[in-house]
């Protein structure tokens, strides 16, 4: 339980004591609540991003974000290349599109999670987006938009192998949401050798016919 305390020589800040974080465990609700509040006061984006301009967002301009903030979107744009690895296309525009559409499906999925789990994810994302906690707890120094895939991967590995269950849980949450949204999407089925529902059944069933 103490490796994070002793190994990380990062910032010490009276208002956000890392010991607090470790003591409270997932009940860290209290601590994380502080982060959300601080993030809000310090002007971090805390409102859903809504409809982003196509140029600004590199996304489908028609998609309306219901949960992810612009900061969260940057977080996933930094993490997805590390989470998806060689499953992402190499060609630059195809890669951008794959990342953008995965972020949109992550947002749509989280909308259906409902309020309780949204609250937990809000705390996790705020912790990762707020500079002080990003540096001390995730040990990621640059802002996410400047994080390399190697740095993102190292962060994921740290949380995966940590002896702190709460960080393992954070690793699972980030990777599971991303992997499900990516591999579960029809356009990516081929990456898992899944041909989709049997064609003969699709042909025979009324719900696949235009009414």
């Amino acid at each position, binding site marked *: 339980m103490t490796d994070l305390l002793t190994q990380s020589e990062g910032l010490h800040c009276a208002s956000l004591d890392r010991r607090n974080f470790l003591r409270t465990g997932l009940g860290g609700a209290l601590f994380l609540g502080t982060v959300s509040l601080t993030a809000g006061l310090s002007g971090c984006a805390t409102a859903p991003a809504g409809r982003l301009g196509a140029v600004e967002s590199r996304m489908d301009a028609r998609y309306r974000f219901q949960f992810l903030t612009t900061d969260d979107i940057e977080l996933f744009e930094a993490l997805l290349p590390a989470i998806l690895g060689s499953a992402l296309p190499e060609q630059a525009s195809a890669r951008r599109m794959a990342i953008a559409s995965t972020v949109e499906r992550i947002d749509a999925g989280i909308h259906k999670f*409902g309020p309780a*789990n949204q609250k937990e994810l809000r705390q996790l994302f705020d912790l990762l987006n707020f500079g002080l906690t990003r540096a001390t707890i995730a040990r990621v120094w640059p802002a996410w938009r400047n994080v390399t895939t190697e740095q993102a991967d190292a962060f994921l590995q740290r949380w995966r192998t940590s002896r702190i*269950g709460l960080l393992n849980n954070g690793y699972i949450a980030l990777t599971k949401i991303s992997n499900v949204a990516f591999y579960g999407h029809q356009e990516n089925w081929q990456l898992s050798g*899944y041909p989709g529902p049997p064609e003969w059944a699709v042909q025979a069933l009324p719900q696949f016919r235009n009414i």
Partner: protein
Amino acid sequence: MPFNDRIAQGLESGWKVIDSATLTEHHTAEADVVIVGTGAGGGTTAEILAKSGLSVILVEEGRLYYQKDFKMDELASYANLYQEGMSRTTKDGAIAILQGRCVGGSTTVNWTSSFRTPDETLNYWGKRFGLDALSPDAMAPWFDGRETRHSMSPWDMDPNLNNDILRQGCEKLGFSWQIIPRNVNGCWNLGYCGVGCPTNAKQGALMTTIPGALDNNATMYHGLRAERLVMNQDRIESLQATAMASDGITPGKIMVTLKARHFVVAASAIGSPGLLLRSKVPDPYERVGKRSFIHPVNASVAQMPKLVDPFYGAPQSVYSDEFNFRNGVDGEIGYKLEVPPLHPAMSAGVVPGHGDEQAKNMARLPWMQSVIALMRDGFHEESPGGTVSLRDDGSPMLDYPISDYLWKGLRDAFYTMAEIQFAAGADKVRLMHLDSDWYSSWADAKAAIDGFAMAPHRVRLFTAHQMGGCVMGSKPENSVVNGFGEHHQVSNLSVHDASIFPTSIGANPQLSVYALAARNSTRLAQRLQT
């Protein structure tokens, strides 16, 4: 092309089905009985009471989805048909909870396995909880009746390879195995039970008891959240409910008040204790929400030399009870061995990992096979179960701590599953644990499992079976309802779902729920008619 399935026809013929998202003003209705929940318990209760001539109102928080919506698509189904969009977990996030949230409840999305309550379990309930009336002999006619009603019989096609590998491994090692009875009628053997049966072959509540109740004049509200039961002196007077928006998750402003002579709660082992706690129904011994069981599940995946195509074919057709009662009913924990279907999103959610390694894992999905072990929790003092409590917003959550007793069983199951997969010819095996690599021999896997830290989050855990929380028993001091599901303190309240089980079942629970609900509803119908 017009749909001519059971639900489309019924709606056409004038069934009283109300999409609560379409209500525009507050609304009050009254019936003999209000039933909260439309799953295995609620559906059975509704059909039996409606056929006996009682007026019935069914309340479902999820929405009505049926054949037109079942397009064999994982992401759409997980988002719409499962609790919390498939993101439900235990309080600490360590155990993923797969649970239905739609008309038909979990029976709409389960994998159709249909087991009777094991004799050992029923006998234990008699001895330990004063439930002698539920002896195997006494229950047999109820199982018979429900097996007929839901078209349950051992699967008569060949198991898919995913399941057959469990059979092969058991054969090689001398472990017992059997064919799973399934509740299907004219099954196409496609493999999409978990995302809503696309062919209407599955005989869950959606195709049987719900239409049966609606044909007999029952009224069903869907998209309606039961907020609380309102007491007047020592009886429940009404149910207060909130209409949800058409997205199914945003509470709307319209309130619905439902009055009845009797109330049946069948909102699941998480939902039912949640409703009773929110309602502050008398609970003098503080038993509501206690003894919650989940058959904690761990898993192993294998790479097989032959194509498995684990996404096709009846998802569950072979099981092994070799380890289920091996140490007696109440000794070291027993576990049932089964197989899960593996579609891309499911696999990506179950197999932990990221980066190139995960891309490689996923690319081998057609050769992947998986075995799961379901822990038979609740039969030992070191397995007291979890606790359902309310969050600040009134929603229920399950806290389920894992004792050393359970960890030992989970580690034993890791050994068993890897051994079976290697015996069946696996090239490589990986346990669903954050520290597990791929192992290419049983000896390597065994040595690795010896060293696994058995801790929350590191061991990947799941549950698809939620039980207990409003448990039945002869003594009010340690139970919420009696052996007929009748509330000990409130005379016009019954509980008819898996929440009344005083332990886990030791098998997939749907038939246990159907049978007890049928028995208890038959009695309730007699009571209410006199």
